[in-house]
């Protein structure tokens, strides 16, 4: 039953991805200008445009280009960049690695931290620490990432301390994990952007659970406070948090675009911004597919996880 559910979800996910690719294709089409015009910019003379279009094979109708790309992706070939004629896989492989590293580092820090903060504030409900954290997280949640990023740069890189690099520069052939210092500020920005959401949901559901009868019962039975919280309360409070975490992690996959821009971090976000500017359809498609794929995948995972931690659903699914 669970397997069937997962398979069904996967099929729907693929359909979603295909629809996304169509939408992105339509959006790319709607942008005026082509890759040759975007690359040559103000230097574009008719002669040079013609020569470059020829070199980049832009003479093919766009629909053909899309079908080629779609056919290619089904066979695992991502095609060539319209702007450089390099294989997209080669162009993006380092960048995908860098972005994934950034997202994973952020998630590994953000998820446990948010759950801890949520539980901690729920236990101090309506007391000073709760109010302080809640106000702080509301402020953070209302700030766009680039503001958080710039504030971190001012504080830790340029004006106050010189602890971390202001921009994430990597040498030729260097990956983000070869020089983890470059990840610190971008990851911190993402962590500060998602922790408020997850921790608030966690706090909310924890407050509810703490008021429930079985927690009162467990306490009255004389179980240690720690056991009550971490054995009985948290596992039940975590279900809504899983859903929000998935949404937030999926959001990270898109949120990196802005953060990578602020820090000049060599990831897929920067590549996407540039590819849109260059009207580079194969690269735009691949990056959006990747982001959408992560989004869909995480949602499926969250649903499965929810089912697994909810006995009622788990038995129903069986």
């Amino acid at each position, binding site marked *: 039953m669970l397997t069937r559910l997962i398979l069904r979800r996967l099929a729907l996910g693929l359909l979603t991805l295909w629809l996304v690719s169509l939408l992105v294709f339509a959006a790319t089409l709607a942008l*005026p*200008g082509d890759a040759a015009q*975007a*690359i040559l*910019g103000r230097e574009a003379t008719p002669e040079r445009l013609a020569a470059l279009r020829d070199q980049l094979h832009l003479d093919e109708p766009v629909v053909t280009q899309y079908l080629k790309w779609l056919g290619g992706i089904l066979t695992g070939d991502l095609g060539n960049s319209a702007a450089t004629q390099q294989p997209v896989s080669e162009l993006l492989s380092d960048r995908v690695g860098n972005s994934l590293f950034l997202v994973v580092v952020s998630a590994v820090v953000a998820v446990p931290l948010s759950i801890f903060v949520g539980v901690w504030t729920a236990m101090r409900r309506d007391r000073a620490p709760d109010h302080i954290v809640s106000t702080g997280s509301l402020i953070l949640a209302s700030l766009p990432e680039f503001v958080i990023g710039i504030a971190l740069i001012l504080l830790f890189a340029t004006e106050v301390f010189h602890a971390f690099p202001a921009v994430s520069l990597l*040498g030729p052939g260097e990956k983000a994990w070869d020089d983890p210092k470059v990840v610190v500020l971008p990851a911190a920005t993402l962590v500060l952007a998602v922790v408020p959401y997850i921790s608030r949901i966690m706090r909310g559901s924890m407050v509810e659970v703490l008021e429930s009868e079985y927690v009162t019962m467990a306490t009255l039975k004389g179980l240690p406070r720690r056991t009550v919280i971490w054995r009985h309360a948290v596992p039940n409070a975590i279900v809504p948090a899983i859903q929000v975490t998935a949404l937030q992690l999926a959001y990270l996959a898109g949120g990196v675009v802005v953060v990578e821009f602020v820090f000049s971090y060599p990831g897929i976000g920067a590549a996407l911004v540039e590819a849109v500017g260059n009207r*580079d359809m194969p690269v735009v498609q691949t990056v959006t597919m990747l982001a959408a794929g992560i989004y869909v995948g995480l949602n499926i995972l969250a649903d499965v996880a929810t089912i697994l931690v909810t006995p009622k659903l788990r038995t129903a699914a069986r």
Partner: protein
Amino acid sequence: MVWLDEELTRRQVIRAGAAGGLALGAGGALAGCFGGDDDSANNGAPAPQAQPGDFRPGGTLRIGATGGGAEDTVDGQKPTSDPDIMRTWQLFEPLAVRNAAFTKLEMVLAESLEAEKGKADTWTVRLKPDLEFHNGKTVTADDVIFSLQRILDPKDPKVGAASIGYVDAKGLKKMDARTVRIPLKFANSSFPEDLGQYFNNIVPTDFDPKNPVGTGAFKYKSLKPGEQSTFVRFPNYWRKGEPYVDELVIIDFTEPTAKVNALVGGQVEAINNVPFSQVSSLQGNGNLKVVISETGSWQPFTMRVDADPFKDNRVRQAMRLLVDRDQMVQQVLSGQGRIANDLYAPYDDCYAKDLPQRKQDLEQAKSLLKQAGQSDLRVELVTGDIFRGVVEAAQVFAEQAKGAGVEVKVRKVDTGTFYGDNYLSWPFAQDFWATRTYLTQVAQGSLPDSPFNETHWDDKEFQSLIRQARGELDEDKRCELLKEAQKLEYDKGGYIIPYFSNSVDAHSSKIGGIQEAKSGFTLGNYQLRSVGFLK
């Protein structure tokens, strides 16, 4: 203003007959004008803050630039973005190029560049002896012919094709190992200026863009498109003693603020094109030095003289009278610029500086519009992030136009759209141009066959004046013709040129050797060979 002093020195020099920018005399005099100025990059430039003796040789110099991306190139004849141009200047050299102070065309690989027998339609270039490419090969006449033909290749024209398209590529002739005869399709006294531009670089006959070989001060090491490129010192460089640093890294930034942050955080030693709004904060930083250069770079509003409502010259004149130029310099450039008079090429010896400075005159503008039957004029101004300050200038212009009841709707598009199918045919848009001499600029944008004639300026009288000036090798006579041509543009042209903008570089105080550049090419004409770490 420093450049006025410059002007004086230059005039004195010309009078003395020793050197000169466009000071073309007939025949043999040309050799004196264009030849024999060996290593004289600093001529006429403000005294450099650092002398060669102040440098400690070696080190890795890291420079931050904005622009560039996946399409980054190290092909010396195909640079487009700012980092491309910066890379090109390190790896390659043209036959000649304007010096950073823009006082004269300086011979680089050429020893001389002269018109034959006082006629401006055939030219002879003679190379300096014993010039060496990075791979050890000597630079010969064959390389010059190959380079020019590669630029003009009709199947794949390079950037320079738009500047020297009138060279008869098939007629190029090797006279001896160091001499090439260059026939033109029409007489053009401005040929040395057109040829002497950074993108008309000399490459060897076996040039491979994947492993680029030139004669520049730095050799190619690596390129990671959109991120960074690395170069190493060329030990056999012909200017003895240079470059000072062992390694050079040029880093692409997508965004100017990131570039500034990298400088302040110590991740790069120098950056160019500092956003004007950040100049004063960088000036206040004791670890940094800011280099401000007045330039002849201009960012015009372009009105199409063949499209409504600008077809009517009264409307164009009215539009030009709407601009409060001083306010624009303050608001758009944070004061980093100086007002202009709807004319370009301010550093040309023949610049029409006697034409009265145009000022905002809303009453006159209203009356002109009324005469033209356009009292409630509504126009759309297409703008985009094509150059710093351009979008802001559009907004300020729209505000100022309201004073005469003209409604300017600013339409901001992304650069891909700006340079898309409507490029060069927007009725009212903007553009940006580098510092050039008058005739070179005219060839680029003011003739019907110019590649970038965005105003569609097509004036028979103007064209006849330009034709005569091109054939005229006597400077005084030519200046007369060019001043008349400028008067025509001043009275009837389609450009609104509110200001000339400064270019601002900033660097760590650990390094020296970055000079001012009126040329508009940042970092002292991208002259990183003269930059070194201070002792």
